[in-house]
């Protein structure tokens, strides 16, 4: 071989190695890579099955089991538009390059999934491939659902097929080139969808494995709580470290004590997941409130406990922008506390104080207490601004409490002012939102 040929070959080899290494680095570890015990195929696992339904539903019909699993997978949250019929789709996901709409998954043959065979359904849920062979965008979390067992996916299908078919065509997506090229998702899937079912870790307890299956294959927590890489795939090096999704901040749910949920008691996590509120930790709103209402609040208590056991094991990652210690209650007098912000105070005393109080500890209900919530301690004030814009409603066992939406009542400037006032008064560090920031936040919300 000549010297020139050797150089060309060496350079080619280096390029190939660099390319593969680059892709490998971008791809990163899988969602369960942090649990480093030996993993085996489900069929070879002898502990209590981590898949399927809780014991109370063991004898239930396929459709009933599917109904439970569909709730645990929270299909409804994305496949039901506000005011629309369940599972008929039409929710718009606003992305920087256009809007993507969820589709009808009732068994309507023309506009729904009525023509799907079992294999078609598995292809969609596990591989992101439609009945007609076209690729799904990863807004459908098939890279998470791919860990779901075939039996569970087909139970969900049986449940969906038990629903009345509704004729509801999805609105056309408005994605721009090149994002409107569905076929290109083939490369995304090849790189980022592992297309493999859940493998129990035999070094962990059956409860942990059940929790891992629920959190990864069904509840798909990481789709909002794990940051994404440049290719919009989950970066599991930062697993559950928090991210902004659809204009709301999904906070750090790693075991980090200061900025994650490491310091929460089990009972707090259980209460938060099953009711959307835990004393001293604030109240779920936005997309997490939907997840609680449609999914977690309907799950068996042993399943919620399993998810908590699993969350406890996720390695800590610190959110450096969040304070290590959350702010205590604000002073009782309106004259003390916070930063000078006349406009924010004017909005607060007119619209907010009657429920939230000057201290942040609500005279109305603990559900409306601001003290201890990460949202008011987030110096970006993302969720404070969003909840002011869109309001919220909490349904708990004992009562229901709603916050009205102020998005149409106040200008972007006023919303920015009150968010800055609230974070300065009730949080560790005040935000510096501008009217422009609020306008941007309004644009990002799915609807």
């Amino acid at each position, binding site marked *: 071989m000549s010297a020139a040929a050797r150089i060309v070959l060496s350079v080619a080899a280096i390029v190939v190695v660099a390319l593969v290494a680059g892709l490998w680095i971008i791809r990163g570890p899988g969602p369960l890579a942090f649990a480093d015990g030996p993993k085996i195929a489900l069929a070879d696992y002898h502990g209590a099955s981590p898949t399927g339904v809780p014991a109370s539903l063991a004898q239930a019909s396929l459709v009933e089991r599917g109904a439970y699993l569909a709730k645990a997978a929270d299909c409804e949250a994305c496949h039901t538009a506000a005011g629309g019929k369940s599972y008929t789709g039409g929710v718009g996901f606003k992305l920087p390059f256009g809007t993507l709409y969820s589709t009808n998954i009732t068994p309507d043959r023309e506009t729904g999934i009525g023509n799907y065979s079992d294999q078609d359904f598995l292809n969609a849920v596990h591989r992101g491939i439609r009945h007609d062979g076209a690729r799904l965008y990863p807004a459908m979390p098939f890279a998470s659902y791919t860990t779901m067992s075939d039996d569970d996916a087909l139970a969900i299908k049986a449940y969906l097929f038990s629903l009345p078919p509704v004729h509801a065509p999805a609105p056309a997506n408005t994605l721009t080139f090149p994002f409107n090229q569905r076929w290109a998702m083939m490369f995304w899937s090849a790189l980022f969808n592992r297309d493999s079912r859940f493998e129990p870790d035999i070094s962990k307890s059956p409860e942990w494995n059940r929790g891992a299956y629920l959190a990864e294959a069904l509840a798909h927590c990481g789709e909002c709580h794990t940051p994404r890489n440049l290719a919009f795939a989950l970066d599991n090096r930062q697993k559950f470290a928090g991210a902004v999704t659809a204009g709301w901040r999904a906070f750090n749910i790693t075991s980090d004590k200061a900025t994650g949920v490491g310091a929460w008691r089990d009972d707090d996590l259980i209460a938060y997941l099953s009711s959307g509120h835990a004393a001293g930790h604030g109240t779920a709103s936005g997309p997490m409130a939907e997840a609680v209402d449609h999914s977690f609040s309907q799950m068996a208590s042993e399943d919620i406990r399993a998810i908590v056991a699993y969350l406890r094991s996720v390695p800590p990652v610190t959110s450096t922008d969040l304070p290590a210690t959350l702010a205590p209650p604000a002073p009782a007098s*309106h*004259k003390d506390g916070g930063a000078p912000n006349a406009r924010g105070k*004017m909005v607060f*005393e*007119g*619209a907010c*104080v*009657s*429920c939230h*109080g*000057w201290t942040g500890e609500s*005279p*109305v*209900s603990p*559900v409306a207490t601001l003290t201890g919530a990460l949202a008011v301690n987030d110096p970006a004030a993302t969720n404070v601004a969003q909840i002011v814009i869109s309001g919220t409603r909490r*349904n708990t066992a*004992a*009562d*229901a*409490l*709603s916050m*009205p939406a102020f998005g149409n*009542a106040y200008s972007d400037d006023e919303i920015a002012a009150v968010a800055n006032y609230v974070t300065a008064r009730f949080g560790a560090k005040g935000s510096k939102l501008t009217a422009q920031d609020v306008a941007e936040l309004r644009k990002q919300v799915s609807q």
Partner: protein
Amino acid sequence: MATTLTINGEQRSFDAPADMPLLWVLRDILGMTGTKFGCGIAQCGACTVHIDGKPVRSCVLPVGAVRDRAVTTIEGVGSTPTGAKIQKAWLDLEVIQCGYCQSGQIMSATALLAATPHADDSDIDAAMAGNICRCGTYVRIRAAIKQAASGRQA
């Protein structure tokens, strides 16, 4: 759901779903119509009552969330010393025009003076900004609060 609440010092029992707003219970079940419905979303103050002495908008407060806390309404507030002072000042200065918001105004003003007997203008702003009056009686409301606070004609 059978519920018992302490309202104006009396035990009142009734059947209501836990998520029914307290205002509905007061007006429609117990017939206590002194507390008014304004906006229904805690933005006008007409429905203000006291829960353990603190002003609360009863239109958004689920009755199930009241639990064992004491409820005071416009029907009972005159029997508290501060409530009586406020009502007298309201009459002396003829604060009321159409009157619809005034139960809520009186409840908020009473809670203010009970907590801050020497309220200044900024205290009045902070406590009363959430009570809207479409007749614009704000100037007389402020004067009446000051009179009740000082015991003198403003």
